[in-house]
């Protein structure tokens, strides 16, 4: 019974004890790192196989359709059929493309999506490696995606692809700032960048302490993964598919896998930073429950992102960049200063956190009021509603 309670960690312990006989410690490390590495590197692939089906079903329901329903019960094997198709499809490399860069881009974008999983904690002591710079590592690895996308757009030697790549640079750069600032707010409250430490510190999930930081993170993450309503980098109706227009077969497949891998990763990071990660009822008595709570919370975040995608129309690029620089950045800077001030007050932690909550709600209120006034001014000037 005790074994079951902390099943995953105990399993790992038994395995390590079993393998340690006759092997030097460094070899045990290498073998274990390889196993954990192979499991974690499959995460984007698993994400694609499950989330594409979920997304089609959810978007289908939102748009009053039923989604895939032919391949297997409820169409659950649709993603596998797609994977087989991608694997056996002819690979076309345009004559004008810059071939080494063109071929490297899909590999690099997958690496960017996979490496994020090294620091995401699935449960207590269940993390690839709880680096002391966890949050900063996530941001650093996240920028690999920007480089890979720019490489793909540039190397394709296609005007649509290049336009897509320019938009990517502007968008990913602009939304990285509010994302970094909201993560810095969490780091400020906790005092560590370790993902495990951030989860341990969340006696109350930080979404109830720093709601503004959570909203800013979620919006920035939507933009960073290039999903609707911020999907200007793909914008099927304007620039066809953006940066991966010239890719086909499995090279296109890696872009697709990286996209869903990133979606799962940003949702997992949102869960870790703001929703208490693997924490939940009875988790200290039965640590094996941790991963289940983690997965449930992550799926809820993903569902919200899909809901947003199904509901909102796409923004124009100037509106989108303006929103990042004129709304999200000032709001998260103000939030950071307020949280720092509240942290400095000599009071017990619950009081401090309550003050942070009040400040967050106040900033949200002020931001919404200013946005409403700006919309009214715009409508009076141009005779249009909203925009």
């Amino acid at each position, binding site marked *: 019974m005790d074994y079951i309670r902390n099943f*995953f*960690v105990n399993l*790992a*312990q038994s395995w*390590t004890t079993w393998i340690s006989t006759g092997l030097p*410690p460094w070899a*045990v*490390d*290498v073998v274990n*790192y*390889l196993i954990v*590495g192979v499991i974690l*590197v499959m995460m984007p692939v698993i994400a694609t196989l499950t989330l594409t089906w979920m997304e089609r079903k959810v978007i289908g329901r939102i748009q009053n359709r039923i989604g895939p329903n032919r391949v297997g019960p409820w169409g659950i094997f649709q993603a596998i059929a797609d994977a087989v198709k991608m*694997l*056996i499809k*002819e*690979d*076309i*490399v*345009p*004559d004008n493309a810059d071939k080494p860069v063109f071929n490297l881009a*899909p*590999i690099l974008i997958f*690496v960017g999506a*996979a*490496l994020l999983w090294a620091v995401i904690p699935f449960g207590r*002591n*269940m*993390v*690839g*490696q709880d*680096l*002391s710079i966890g949050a*900063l590592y996530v941001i650093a690895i996240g920028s690999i995606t920007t480089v890979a996308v720019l490489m793909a757009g540039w190397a394709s*030697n296609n005007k649509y692809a*290049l336009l897509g790549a*320019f938009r990517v640079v502007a968008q990913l*750069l*602009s939304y*990285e*700032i509010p994302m*970094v600032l909201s993560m*810095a707010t969490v*780091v*400020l409250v906790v005092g560590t*960048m*370790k993902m495990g430490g951030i989860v341990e510190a969340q006696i109350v999930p930080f979404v109830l302490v720093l709601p503004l930081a959570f909203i800013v993170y979620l919006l920035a993450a939507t933009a960073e993964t290039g999903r609707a309503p911020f999907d200007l980098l793909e914008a099927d109706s304007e620039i066809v598919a953006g940066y991966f*227009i*010239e890719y086909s077969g*499995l090279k296109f497949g*890696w872009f697709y896998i990286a996209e869903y891998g990133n979606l799962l990763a940003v949702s997992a990071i949102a869960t870790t930073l703001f929703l208490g990660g693997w924490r939940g009822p009875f988790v200290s008595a039965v640590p094996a429950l941790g991963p289940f709570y983690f997965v449930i919370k992550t799926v809820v975040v993903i569902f919200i992102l899909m809901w947003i995608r199904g509901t909102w129309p796409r923004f124009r690029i*100037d509106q989108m960049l303006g929103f990042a*620089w*004129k709304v999200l*950045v*000032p709001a998260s*800077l103000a939030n950071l*200063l307020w949280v*720092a001030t509240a942290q*400095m007050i000599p009071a017990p932690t619950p009081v401090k956190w309550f003050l942070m909550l009040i400040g967050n709600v106040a900033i949200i209120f002020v931001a919404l009021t200013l946005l409403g006034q700006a919309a009214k001014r715009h409508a009076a000037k141009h005779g249009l509603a909203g925009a």
Partner: protein
Amino acid sequence: MRELIVARVRPKGGQTVLSQYAFVGIFAIIAFALPIIGLAMSWLIRPKKPNRAKNATYECGMETIGDTWVQFKAQYYLFALIFVVFDVEAIFIFPWAIAYNKLGLYALVEMVLFVVILFGGLLYAWKKKALEWH
């Protein structure tokens, strides 16, 4: 012993920083290997029948006119410049946030000044209409 990972629990001694990053290194190698293996597999089984029309640049059926790699809109460059300023700030904020509880009131005053100066820069860019789309 909190930082010990699931698949590696050693009876005594903690992990060195080098060992932590050894995992990231091995993981990176695996992450590079997987797409390469996948592409190699696909290369073995997929058809290879290129022709000129298929390999032409895709532009909705039109012939491509002119070079793709031309001078681009300077607007993107302005955003990149503002980004650099704020990203450097972010690099500064993280160590500040970690050490904040030990630094006392001085840290708060210093960061307020820093952010106010930066925000002044953002306002300047805003007033100069660098954030608008021309």
